[in-house]
């Protein structure tokens, strides 16, 4: 009876700690949500680099088709836009950012409790086994551990473990997030500069947007030349099919640029959402910035799915 009261007290105490908010801080929930949203931004940025690399090769292949009879196959002309070394460095940065996002989401999510829950369940079984050990009753008849006490003790250990995890997170996560903030700002700024601008009326074009825009112009240019050069050899149906590719390429050009613009916006929103992780719990800034970031990710995704469906 005395034991039951102690176990009951322990369970009640731990539950009160949970209910009083000691256990599950908003920071953990925010960090988990941020990690998942940031992960999508990183994936989309990586897809942006892949798109420019693939399109540059497509242009090389379409030029090869036109030039083959005249100059044969020159393998040096079929190459991606960004050389391997420069791309590799960027991939390492993106992979590091992906790891940060994933680990932040993992550490801050309920997933961190699963091991504790598993071990507590195992402990409960072991305590129950001990309570039913016939030899214990023979050796120490006065020591009694009933089944509910054993389960109660395991529950108390489980709750205590969760409280310890949360205390650790509350102490360490703000330091890690603060350390990452300037690094994240620099990364996003550099990636934003890489994406650059589309030329408007022939001016101010730079970076991946400029390059991708011109690559699509080159694809359209090659397609027109192909149609004109083979005009008398193509059947009406073949000619129709080839001509139909021109508006498709023009639309792909707009979609690919829109995806880069949306990625650029997401890269500008990402450090703001990350900074808001450390804002006061009563402040709604994080919630608003997270929603913006999630909307960015969905928009980029829709542009890329349009491109992939063509």
């Amino acid at each position, binding site marked *: 009876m005395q034991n039951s009261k102690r176990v009951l007290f322990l369970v009640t105490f731990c539950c009160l700690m949970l209910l009083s908010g000691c256990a599950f801080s908003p920071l953990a929930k925010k960090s988990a949500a941020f990690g998942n949203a940031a992960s999508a931004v990183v994936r989309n940025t990586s897809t942006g680099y892949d798109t420019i690399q693939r399109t540059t090769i497509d242009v090389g292949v379409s030029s090869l088709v036109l030039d083959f009879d005249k100059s044969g196959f020159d393998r040096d002309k079929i190459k991606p836009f960004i050389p391997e070394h420069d791309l590799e460095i960027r991939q390492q940065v993106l992979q590091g950012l992906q790891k940060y996002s994933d*680990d932040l989401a993992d*550490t801050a999510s309920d997933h961190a409790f699963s*091991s504790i829950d598993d071990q507590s369940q195992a402990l409960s079984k*072991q305590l129950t086994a001990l309570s039913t050990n016939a030899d214990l009753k023979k050796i120490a008849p006065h020591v009694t551990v009933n089944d509910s006490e054993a389960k109660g003790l395991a529950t108390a250990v489980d709750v205590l*473990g969760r409280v310890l995890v949360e205390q650790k997170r509350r102490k360490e996560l703000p330091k890690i997030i603060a350390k990452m903030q300037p690094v994240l700002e620099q990364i996003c700024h*550099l990636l934003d500069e890489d994406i650059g601008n589309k030329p408007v009326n022939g001016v101010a074009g*730079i970076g991946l947007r*400029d390059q991708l825009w011109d690559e699509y112009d*080159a694809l359209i240019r090659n397609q027109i*030349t192909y149609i004109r050069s083979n005009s008398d050899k193509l059947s009406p149906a073949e000619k129709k099919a080839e001509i139909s590719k021109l508006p498709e390429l023009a639309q792909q050009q707009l979609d690919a640029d829109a995806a880069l613009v949306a990625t650029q916006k997401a890269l500008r929103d990402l450090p703001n959402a990350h900074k808001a992780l450390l804002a006061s719990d009563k402040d709604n800034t994080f919630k608003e910035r997270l929603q913006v970031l999630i909307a960015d990710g969905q928009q980029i995704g829709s542009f890329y799915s349009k491109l992939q469906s063509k």
Partner: protein
Amino acid sequence: MGDEINQQALRDKYQQLHDSIEHAIETCTNAAICESLREQGESVDAVITAMNLADIQARTGDFQNLIDKIKSVNADLGKLKDEIAKIGDNIAILGKVVSGIDSAISAAAKFLPV
């Protein structure tokens, strides 16, 4: 700063040339002229591509410098993950201790007079 302005002005000239060729080829009906315009377009694009690539490559060093900084933050996060995992491990040890006591009691019962 002056060099950057000149560089962008030069880029803009090439881009305007690219756009003019693009416009001409879209309205061209003669195959030979189309082919000639295409060749000129490729020459202009080669210059724009080289400029865009130089701009991208100018940032590679800055990206490189950030790799160690990210690794350092990720190491801190990894340490926190490990410390959280240890809490679960400690409960597992507690379970093993209980299991050990259970086995020890059964073993002791064989030798103790009851």
